[in-house]
């Protein structure tokens, strides 16, 4: 079964690589390479004859594997990019744990292929979760630093998005009783609240996965993974899943009115914001991450405008050159030993890498006649076909992309000023033997990028039409003209800043909030990640303390209150009575002193009576009230103690209680009915 081979070969190769381990790394990398290469061949075969296969799972559920025309491009793209990435990874970083890295990369390819051939929502959800899981493992590869925390951040954000898939699966299954993609069109045309729920869930999941606003920042935390992982994750696998899902289900999604404006709005916002964020980054990887969000914003715009084919075309082109750029960034980081632009400018020392990276940068900037440019023009055309202003905004975003692409190239691989040449020279012979293999990887991707410029020929365009199976908006000349102008403007602006040595911080001092996605990460961290993690920790800490402190505390409280009452009574009531009596005595004495002569016997009598009365009052009242209050206090205390005695901590007595109560329950139920 060729479809199984498509998924099984990379999975198997990955597991074997992982098991073989670091000791026989040569074998491992050969196995991984062979696996991915085999996957490439199988993928081409699958893309040519589109087989379908069903797997009955029982219980009314079934797994469907089919190759939608729109999935053929990505099917081939994923192993192609992965091949280069694995070549690069086989010599990346310290050899410790490299087998795991290679294995995980290969497995990543397998699960992504599974996602691409998913023919129903159940299969898709499985693959979707697996992709998230594997990317988590890849990000947390260097598990000694803060990588695990970042991985958890990325994982939780994307998982939160996955909930959308579950919701929509529930909605569609409850309504139509089937999870087949083929049935979604009919389902959504049927209308109803379920349709809105379904589409909302899908869109939510897709936006989180492909890092649209406001979920973009998880890409930054994904940056703490090893560079090969980032290269694969940004270009073809993880992030691509969202855009692919939207493009795949576009006909079904388009049936509600709010999908189109939502997609276009979010896509445009992400594209523009991503450009700004990328324009001020001080690290190459983060710049590329921001640009990833922006580029996927283009694709979302294309889908929203109703041209899934365009989105897929841009997905393919972007996958190729983004992987190229990431790998070159990794080379730059390894060579300069720092992850910041400030220490790079390796133009002199790494000429080949610089040249190859330039290809990718040009493609990212959208300079004809490269493939990236063509697909971007297609996006512009699609947007303008929707509305001129949208097209203009896309062109603006294109200006931004031109700016940051140039910025990346100049800062990372520009030539140094004379006084820094010495530094460059001694960095030139870097001991790491990385460049040879990374160069092969870069070569591969650069050739692919250049090969894509065939799209400018009518032949290439119809090939692309055949592959993506969508139709393209006719590109008008003025659109092309202004977007060229915009590209030139962006690139030129970057050059200008470069000449003034202000490119590193284009807008004066580094704008921390912008370069950190306008502080959204803080928001998500506070809003989503921290609660989840706190919940986990809390659940871990939850123990009998919480459970059994209850009754004891109640009884203690009861005793305390009763004691308080008693004391209060002593203080207030008694004191009151005493004071009354004292007052009475005082007045009587005053009266007595006031008049001795007049019949003082009576007065003394009065005084004595008053004193006696007050004493009587004092004694009896005190005793009465006191006893009452004390009694009530003692009662509550006793009750507390009694209720506390149930909590004997003796399991068998608990069992006895359980048995008795359940018997009573059964009795009640029987009598009830």
């Amino acid at each position, binding site marked *: 079964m060729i479809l199984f081979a498509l998924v099984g070969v990379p999975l198997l190769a990955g597991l074997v690589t992982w098991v073989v381990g670091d000791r026989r790394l040569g074998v491992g990398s050969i196995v991984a390479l062979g696996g991915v290469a085999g996957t490439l061949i199988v993928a081409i075969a699958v893309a040519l004859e589109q087989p379908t296969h069903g797997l009955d799972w029982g219980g009314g559920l079934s797994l469907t594997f089919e190759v939608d025309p729109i999935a053929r491009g990505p099917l081939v793209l994923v192993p192609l990019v992965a091949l280069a990435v694995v070549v690069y990874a086989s010599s990346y970083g310290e050899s410790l744990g490299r087998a795991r890295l290679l294995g995980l990369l290969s497995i990543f390819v397998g699960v992504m292929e599974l996602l691409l051939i998913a023919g129903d929502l159940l299969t898709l959800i499985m693959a979707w979760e697996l992709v998230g899981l594997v990317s988590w493992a890849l990000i947390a590869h260097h598990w000694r630093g803060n990588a695990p925390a970042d991985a958890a951040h990325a994982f939780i954000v994307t998982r939160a998005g996955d909930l959308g898939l579950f919701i929509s699966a529930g909605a569609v299954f409850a309504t139509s009783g089937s999870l087949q993609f083929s049935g979604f069109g009919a389902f959504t045309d049927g209308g109803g609240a379920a349709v809105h729920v379904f589409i909302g869930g899908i869109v939510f999941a897709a936006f989180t996965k492909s890092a649209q606003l406001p979920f973009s920042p998880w890409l930054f935390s994904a940056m703490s993974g090893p560079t090969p992982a980032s290269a694969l994750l940004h270009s073809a696998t993880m992030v691509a899943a969202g855009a692919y899902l939207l493009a795949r289900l576009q006909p079904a999604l388009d049936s509600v009115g709010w999908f189109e404006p939502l997609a276009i709005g979010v896509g445009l916002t992400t594209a523009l914001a991503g450009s700004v964020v990328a324009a001020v980054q001080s690290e190459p990887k983060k710049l590329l991450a921001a640009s990833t969000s922006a580029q996927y914003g283009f694709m979302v715009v294309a889908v929203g405008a109703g041209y899934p084919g365009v989105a897929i075309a841009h997905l393919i082109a972007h996958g190729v050159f983004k992987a190229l750029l990431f790998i070159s960034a990794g080379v730059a980081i390894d060579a300069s030993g720092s992850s910041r632009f400030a220490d790079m400018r390796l133009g002199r020392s790494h000429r080949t890498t610089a040249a190859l990276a330039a290809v990718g940068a040009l493609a990212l900037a959208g300079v004809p006649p490269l493939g990236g440019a063509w697909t971007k023009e297609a996006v512009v055309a699609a947007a303008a076909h929707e509305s001129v202003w949208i097209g203009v905004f896309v062109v603006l975003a294109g200006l931004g992309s031109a700016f940051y692409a140039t910025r990346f190239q100049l800062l990372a691989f520009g030539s140094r000023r004379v006084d820094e040449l010495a530094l460059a020279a001694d960095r030139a012979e870097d001991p790491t033997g990385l460049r040879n293999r990374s160069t092969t990887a870069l070569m591969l991707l650069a050739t692919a990028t250049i090969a894509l410029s065939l799209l400018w020929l009518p032949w290439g365009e119809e090939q692309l039409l055949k592959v993506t199976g969508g139709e393209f908006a006719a590109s008008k000349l003025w659109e092309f003209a202004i977007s060229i102008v915009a590209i030139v403007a962006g690139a030129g602006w970057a050059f200008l800043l470069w000449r003034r040595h202000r490119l590193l911080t284009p807008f004066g001092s580094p704008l921390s909030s912008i370069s950190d996605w306008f502080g959204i990460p803080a928001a998500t961290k506070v809003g989503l990640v921290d609660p989840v993690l706190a919940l986990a920790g809390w659940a871990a800490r939850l123990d*009998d303390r919480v459970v059994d*402190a209850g009754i004891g505390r109640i009884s203690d409280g009861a005793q305390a209150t009763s004691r308080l009452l008693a004391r209060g009574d002593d203080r207030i009531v008694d004191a009151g009575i005493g004071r009354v009596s004292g007052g009475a005595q005082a007045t009587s004495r005053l009266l007595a002193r006031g008049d001795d002569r007049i019949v003082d016997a009576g007065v003394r009598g009065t005084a004595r009576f008053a004193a006696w009365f007050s004493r009587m009052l004092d004694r009896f009242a005190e005793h009465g009230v006191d006893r009452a209050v004390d009694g009530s206090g003692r009662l509550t205390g006793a009750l507390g103690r009694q209720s506390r005695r149930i*909590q*004997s*901590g003796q*399991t*068998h007595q*608990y*069992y006895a209680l359980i*048995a008795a109560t359940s018997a009573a329950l059964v009795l009640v139920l029987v009598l009830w009915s």
Partner: protein
Amino acid sequence: MNLMTVLLVAAALIGVGVWGALAQQTFVMLMMGIEMMLNGVILAVAGFWAFTGAGLPKGQVLVIITMAVMAIELAIGFALVTAVYRARQADMTEGIGSLKG
């Protein structure tokens, strides 16, 4: 042999199980009581399957589920007993009072 008699036997087994589970001191004996209850349950389920289910195989599946429950109960039970013994050096229910309020 009809449904009533089978259920009566099951009732006796369940009663014995309850008695044992409540009366025994050792964890292991307590688990034996639970096993005895499940024993009765299995008998009852099989009886229902045989006399009222018209031979619907799902009834047998239920019995298999019950067996799996027994196995799981035994495994987790023994693991817990071992862990409790490590933590508390106790093999009798009186030995642990950590739920004491």
